[in-house]
């Protein structure tokens, strides 16, 4: 029984490990697993050591962090809104965070750790504002109907995106290059940007990882959750803030990557059921794997040119979204 319960964790970790190896190995120069091992223990060739530590590893780690952030925040938003189509991208939080990030970038803080920290911080503030606006517009009483949520998300998201484009167009050339970033191409800052988002992710993810039981209760509606002993108002606010913190950190240096937060929790739900205590950690692990695979595809399709990873996730994710929409309509789901 205990072994059975661990199977999903073991298999998702195995898949993640495979994705990590793939992500480190594949690129303009192929690095074999043996070479990766030699380099990691300090016996590799100089060129592969340099590629590995300065390019492949930071990129892989950033993609892992982004993917896991999108996976777990998607699962949290779905639980919070009691809606299977909630996703940081679809409800506009990602675009909101993008706006904040661009505002912070246009100030042009010094290119240091603290300068970079300002980006996720600004992204977090606008992400919170966005989610609050969307929720206020979309909700009817205590429920958030799917159509309202998506429509409010689209509207607010378009608004934030227009502002973002405006800011980008009237700023310098350097900023214009950020357009690629906004479409989900990671900014290559090596390890600095990873350090800058790490505190946000650690706080947000820790809160979300222990929120499984509370999210389970919230699935029965606010009244029942309260009657079973949950402080609903406080819990909702805490989870909302943590999920937005995590989304903002993900968007800050990886741009707006859609559909990972939608697809991953869905696949996990089909696999292990509705218990958020398992859904959250599994969405975190598998979000990382899914985005790593997407990133590898983005690197090889037009090689040596790179595709923004957001294009890959949207190409695969949008049809999935439509399928879920159709399914949830047919079944009168949620």
């Amino acid at each position: 029984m205990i072994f059975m319960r661990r199977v999903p964790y073991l298999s998702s970790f195995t898949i993640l490990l495979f994705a990590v190896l793939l992500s480190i190995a594949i690129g303009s120069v192929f690095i074999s697993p043996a070479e990766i091992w030699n380099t990691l223990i300090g016996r590799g060739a100089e060129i592969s050591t340099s590629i590995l530590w300065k390019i492949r590893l930071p990129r892989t780690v950033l993609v892992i962090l982004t993917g896991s952030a999108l996976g777990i925040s998607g699962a949290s938003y779905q639980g919070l809104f009691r809606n299977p189509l909630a996703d940081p991208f679809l409800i506009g939080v990602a675009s909101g965070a993008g706006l904040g990030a661009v505002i912070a970038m246009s100030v042009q803080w010094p290119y240091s750790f603290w300068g970079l920290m300002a980006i996720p911080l600004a992204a977090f503030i606008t992400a919170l504002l966005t989610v609050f606006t969307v929720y206020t517009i979309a909700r009817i009483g205590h429920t958030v109907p799917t159509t309202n949520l998506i429509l409010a998300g689209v509207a607010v998201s378009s608004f934030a995106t227009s502002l973002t484009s405006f800011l980008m167009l009237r700023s310098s050339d350097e900023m214009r290059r950020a357009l690629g970033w906004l479409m989900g191409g990671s900014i290559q800052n090596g390890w600095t940007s990873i350090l800058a988002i790490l505190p946000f992710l650690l706080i947000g993810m820790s809160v979300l990882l222990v929120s499984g039981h509370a999210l389970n209760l919230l699935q029965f509606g606010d009244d029942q959750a309260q009657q079973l002993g949950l402080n609903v108002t406080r819990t909702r606010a805490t989870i909302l803030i943590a999920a937005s913190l995590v989304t903002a950190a993900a968007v800050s240096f990886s741009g707006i990557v859609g559909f990972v937060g939608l697809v991953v929790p869905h696949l996990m739900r089909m696999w292990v059921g509705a218990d958020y205590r398992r859904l959250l950690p599994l969405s975190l692990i598998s979000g990382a794997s899914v985005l790593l695979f997407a990133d590898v595809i983005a690197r090889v399709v037009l090689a040596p040119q790179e595709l923004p990873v957001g294009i890959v996730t949207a190409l695969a994710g949008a049809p999935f979204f439509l399928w879920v929409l159709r399914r949830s309509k047919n079944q009168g789901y949620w």
Partner: protein
Amino acid sequence: MYYGTRQILRDIGLEIRSGEVVALIGPNGAGKSTLIRSISGVVPVRAGNIEVNDTNITSLSSMERARQIAVVPQAVSMPPAFTVWETVLLGRTPYLNFLGQVSEKDEALARLALEQVDALHLIESRMDEVSGGEQQRVLLARALTQDTPILLMDEPTAHLDLRHQIDLLKLIKKQAREKDLTVLIALHDLNLASLFADRIAVVENGLLCVAGTPGETLTPEILSSVYHMQVHVIAHPETGAPLIAPGVS
């Protein structure tokens, strides 16, 4: 009691003893559901007290209150993907840490409650796979798992057929007697109230008009005045309890 800025419940002075089943009746909008929701802490109480064993519970935290009061909601809009077992275990929430880790004792209590409502065979089923009557029994099991002296119910029979209505209320009454529970049920069906409640409290326009045994409260005079229509009361052929026949002329 206030809801928003409007005062909707006034002077509800009602004492309920343990082991007693009290039905709350009254027309739509009289305040039955609001009373249930205020006692359970979903609607804040701005003035007045709700006391359990001489302790005012309006100031308790949600968790402390959930150790005193369990609520059986109507089985509507159940999240589909939870199993019966997961649902019933959530009843232990007021005794668990925020991670919701259950002990063997919690599992034993949940199993016992499922057995008591005759739903142990459903343990592996998903909530959306079982019938309305079974869902309602599972929700009763969840409330029993909560292990509280007080049980509140808002129209638990609303979506059930005749047999399941009677089965559920029999079960509730048996549990009330065996575990010495205080049970307050909001009911639309006056005949069910008459057959199963020890006492009936009649609410109208947010006011408690009268409380007493079914014989004392279900009289043509009181019912006609509360429901604004002609009402006949006849005797149940087996027990002699009052049965309501609405006037149609």
